[in-house]
């Protein structure tokens, strides 16, 4: 169900032709033990020009804290419609968030970038914690985040 809704959310934002072709992609985000409360994470995609395309997932339920996900918030203005149906709980230190989505083939090797913004209560906001180009070759290669994310991988 989640993956279906995620697809819908993404498709509403994307106007890429040839979207009919999609494949299931698993996004695995492992947090390090940064010694704080649960982290809010926003996963979203920008195009080659850096413009916001759509959101993939929002970990964290209280919209009043979304402003701390600065990149995502600046791109969407905190619009709840962007994450309708693709919102889950915040992710505790040392925990792993795993989500599976149907991502359009057209997103890969076309200059799109997947971003993760992170924020933790009473700790430094970390926009662009991860910014990784979506490529077929890049799938399965773990990337380290700047502050809270020990590894991120999509495959």
């Amino acid at each position: 169900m989640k993956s279906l809704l995620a697809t819908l959310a993404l498709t509403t934002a994307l106007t890429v032709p040839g979207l009919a072709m999609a494949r299931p992609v698993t996004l695995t985000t492992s947090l390090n033990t940064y010694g704080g409360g649960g982290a809010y994470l926003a996963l979203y995609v920008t195009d080659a020009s850096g413009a916001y395309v759509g959101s993939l997932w929002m970990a964290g339920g209280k919209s009043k804290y979304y402003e701390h996900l600065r990149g995502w918030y600046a791109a969407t203005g905190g619009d709840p419609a962007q994450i309708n149906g693709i919102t889950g709980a915040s992710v505790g230190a040392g925990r792993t968030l795993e989500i599976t989505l149907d991502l359009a083939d057209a997103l890969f090797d076309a200059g799109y970038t997947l971003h993760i913004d992170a924020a933790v209560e009473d700790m430094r906001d970390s926009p662009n914690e991860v910014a990784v180009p979506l490529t077929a070759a890049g799938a399965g290669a773990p990337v380290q985040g700047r502050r809270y994310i020990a590894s991120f991988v999509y495959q």
Partner: protein
Amino acid sequence: MIRALHRWPGLLALVLVTILALSGAALSVFPMAERLAAPQPVAGQSVADLAARVAAVHPGLEEIRRTPSGTITAWWFVGGTPGSAVIDPATGADDGSADPNGVERWLTTLHRSLFLDDGGRLIMAAGAAAMLVLALSGAALVARRAGGWRHWFARLRGPQPGRLHVELARVAALGLTLSATTALWMTASTFDLLPDGAQHPADPVAVSGQMAFPLERMTALQDVPVSSLRKFSFPYAGDAQDVFTLSTDAGTGQIDQGTGVLLSWAELTPWQRVSETIYMLHTGQGAAVLGLILGLITLSVPVMGVTGALIWIAGRRGRPDLRNNAPAGRAETVILVGSEGGSTWGFAATLAQALREGGQAVHVAPMSAFDPASHPRAERVLILAATYGEGDAPASARGFLDRLARLPTAPAAPLAILGFGDRSFPAFCAFAAEAEAAARAKGWAALLPMDTVDRQSPQDFARWGRALGDALGLPLDLNHRPARPAADSLTLVSRRDYGAEVQSPTAILRFALPKATVWARLTGGGIAGFRAGDLLGILPEGAAVPRFYSLASGSRDGFVEIVVKKHPGGLCSGQLLALEPGEAVRAVLRRNPGFHAGRGRAPLILIGAGTGIGPLAGIIRANARRRPVHLFFGMRHPDSDFLYGDDLAKWQAEGRLTRLSTAISRGVRPHYVQDALRAEAAEVAKAIRSGAKVMVCGGRDMAQGVAWALDDILAPMGLTPATLKAGGRYVEDVY
């Protein structure tokens, strides 16, 4: 009503509120610790200066934050690794780790959500709501008990644990109200129920596109003092389109990184300001001293929880089980009870049961809860009222007369009052009579003229029942057997006999202190935790009603002591004086807080004659703090009934008794205790001027004589025994 509003949230939320209170109290320490540990602020420093200093030490600086407690923290990102530290604003250099305190975080999570996330937040919010209800209803109860809000800090009477509960409550009520209200506000804010979200400055239309303007010369930062700083975020490294973001206690703005000029600004909204103030009041972040005070106050919550539960248990014990009690709103007959020791409740239960068997819906309530509006369907009101002391309202009838006086009109349902008392006292059923007079003056219709029951007489009660039945057109057979109180067995340890020579056999009887369970001690049951001046009810063989004697010892003395004089034909005194060591009697304890010496260092003037010396001797024995005590003791003859003669000499040598004046009534020149009082008038007046409390114990005639003598002594000072009495400085235990 208020009491129920206080009791049920209290009992239900006891555990929750205790967790909230203890974790909150522990958390209250952190803001002060942080303030003490934070590096010294630099007077008059601007954010421009601070930012420049920190940036000089830490390349790759991303953000500077200042907590309300004054701790400045910096975050940077250099060479692919993040770093953070607490900063000394004078140098910009590191001054300790910025990692959050694990203990504080754990406590915070427990305090706000029990580690259960949003569900836990709601549970804890319910706890805070319970705390608020408790604080407000408790404050109303304190005011009611003290006789109005103006008497908030009036002196308290009554046994523990009730006194401790109220003493703590009147100090804590305001602080707890504040903590609970702010907690609810913060929960509402967390769940987005308040319009206190952040305002964001408008995105700048255009930025200069330049970078690396020197921080110390940025105009937008130069006039901002560090003390108002919340957060200063740097642009992404290398992104010329990005801006600095500055948050202060006034709002949030964006600053051009190429010119140092403020591009846009958003003020804090009034809602945000209120929320920030509330956050500060609740957490003590930015108000560390207030935080500590609130934390300390919060520690009283578990104590009040335990004492409150004990009060509830003791209250249940003191009142019979009112099964089938109809709700006030449906009641046809309302029975109001004014009881001190609890026996009148037993009569009320019998009456209610008989009326119920006659098909009536009956509501039984204490007189203190009198509120005609709560029983609109009542067809009659029956009041069963005992009397306390010299005509005062008994415990469960406090405030009744005031409530009656405040009514605009008398209730429509007619009234019958039945007084309970002991005919051997002059104030026999005085309170019932006063209530009757007040009701008549108010124009309250009478169902029956007032009647009385002497010494819990079942016959008197049955007779009144028949009269009531006639008035109701209902055969009413009241067959009340006073419940024999749950009595303890007391074993006589020793006896000292006096008075045989003056044909007045008297004995000081000392019983072993019965083993009291911890439970009985805490809940005030059994013969435990008593003081000299409390009453011991002895249940003689062949009688249902106890006879009361003043206790001449406190439980700390390790024994139970009374002084008994044989009355001709007296059932109880006869049995007691025949008692030999090793033999036992059945007894109950009744507290008499009105006749305690109390704390304080003011002098005591103790006046007693005959067996009245008992409680006074107990007070002197317990006077370990060497409070000045002047004892006036009247006896018949020093060779025959000088009760406690040796003890008094010893206590005087030890400093427990300052001065002893005796009066001998048998002899050529009969001399009574009031004569001794007059002879020492100057001494007595001096003591009273310095705040002395007068305690009188003995026969009625003696007490009357003493009152007259005191009248004369007090008159030149513009005082009367009545004014002293009103101030709790003149108390009597008269029989």
